[in-house]
């Protein structure tokens, strides 16, 4: 008997558990994504949203499995294209709250170009990237954020390539809100996500989310993360300096801008037939 997947008609304001579907995640026990899921459900409840008014859009990868584990509307698209799908959805349905979930491969490799332009476009989305510095779904290849000396089958001895710095790229491309969270702190993560959703424009939350199967050494991340020693800034120059000297483990809101979010032009409501006069002889 298939468990109930969609939200029952909840009369009172939904609690965190009302955002979690009955579908059992297939993530490895110990995976950081469990915490992120918990954090997302907490954040959505705290924001007073209803599942039917929230859409979770994802691509391909372990983290992209997340839409089915919520009771929101979900869009599990193709690899790397979650941001454009979410952009089209939000542009057509600005009334919805749209979250985008991705991983370091889906988001920074194949999705890299869309990342740049989504930040630039600054449409009101919240982009949550669960970064575990590896391609987990395909069994352990380097991702753009993998350390250059991490050895794997595809790149024995390491890629030798300098890591991608997503927060710097996000800032340079125009993201309106940039934060880093850690899955080992689900409550802190929930708070950051709620803040990100509340903040207008493109909000980017990179969540360090260890992969217990392919990067078991990431267990020690919990000893390396630390609260960012500064207040969030709205000065891109100051943020740039911070992010360029970031150690990769600063947790908190690192940039909070005030660019107006993208709203496509439109709003008239002429009849379609009125357009014909330009063709008529």
């Amino acid at each position, binding site marked *: 008997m298939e468990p109930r997947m969609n939200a029952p008609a909840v009369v009172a304001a939904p609690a*965190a*558990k009302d955002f979690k579907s009955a579908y*059992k*995640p*297939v993530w*490895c*026990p*110990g*995976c*950081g994504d*469990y*915490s992120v899921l*918990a954090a997302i459900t*907490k954040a959505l409840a*705290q924001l007073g949203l209803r599942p039917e008014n929230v859409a979770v859009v994802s691509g*391909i*990868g372990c983290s992209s499995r997340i839409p089915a584990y919520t009771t929101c509307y979900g869009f599990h698209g193709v690899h790397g294209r979650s941001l454009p799908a979410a952009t089209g959805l939000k542009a057509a349905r600005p009334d919805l709250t749209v979250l985008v979930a991705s991983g370091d491969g889906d988001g920074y490799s194949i999705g890299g170009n869309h990342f740049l332009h989504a930040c630039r476009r600054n449409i009101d989305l919240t982009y949550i990237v669960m970064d575990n510095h590896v391609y987990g*779904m*395909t*069994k*352990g290849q380097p991702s753009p954020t993998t350390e250059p000396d991490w050895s794997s089958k595809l790149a024995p001895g390491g890629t030798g390539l300098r890591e991608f710095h997503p927060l710097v790229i996000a800032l340079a491309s125009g993201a309106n809100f940039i934060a880093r969270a850690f*899955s*080992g*702190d*689900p*409550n*802190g993560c*929930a*708070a950051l996500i709620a803040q990100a959703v509340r903040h207008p424009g493109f909000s980017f939350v990179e969540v360090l989310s*260890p992969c*217990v*199967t*392919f990067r078991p050494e990431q*267990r020690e991340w*919990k000893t390396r993360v630390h609260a960012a020693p500064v207040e969030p800034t709205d000065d891109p120059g100051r943020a740039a300096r911070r992010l360029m000297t970031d150690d990769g483990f600063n947790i908190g809101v690192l940039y909070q801008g005030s660019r107006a979010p993208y709203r496509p032009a439109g709003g008239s409501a002429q009849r379609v037939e009125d357009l014909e006069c330009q063709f008529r002889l």
Partner: protein
Amino acid sequence: MARAYAMELEATERYAQFAEQLDTHNNREVAQMFRKLAAVEALHAKRILEEMHWPSMPALPPAYAWETAEGPETAPFDSMHYLMQPFHALEIALRCEQQAQEYFEDIAAKTAPEKVRRAALEMAEEEREHVRLIRDWMRRVPQPGPGWDEDPDPPSTTE
């Protein structure tokens, strides 16, 4: 006390989630253990309700009002392993109860109001008892040998 109640509830939920995870990953034995642990925590929560004569759930503080990442009695998600043994589950529970005990002892030591101090001391004593129970239980389960986490099969790709 509302906090204590919230703590127990969160712990219950977490153990239940762990049980679900391990069911999905075919570790029935430890899934069963976590279900037991969840039931124990649920009992603790119920006891608090009874002692405080609360008819139903009180208004809970917002979940992330904890100073720590999660409630003191909530096991973190990263403590799991799909091949974990019953002993490991109890180790996790032990840590949780110890943290809970410390939490209440800390409140007792630092708080001024007498009523709260007394309640905290009572809760601390409760948790100490839980710690004893868990340790007992641990003696009754086998210690995991080396290679408990060995899986001859490599990970599989699902997408």
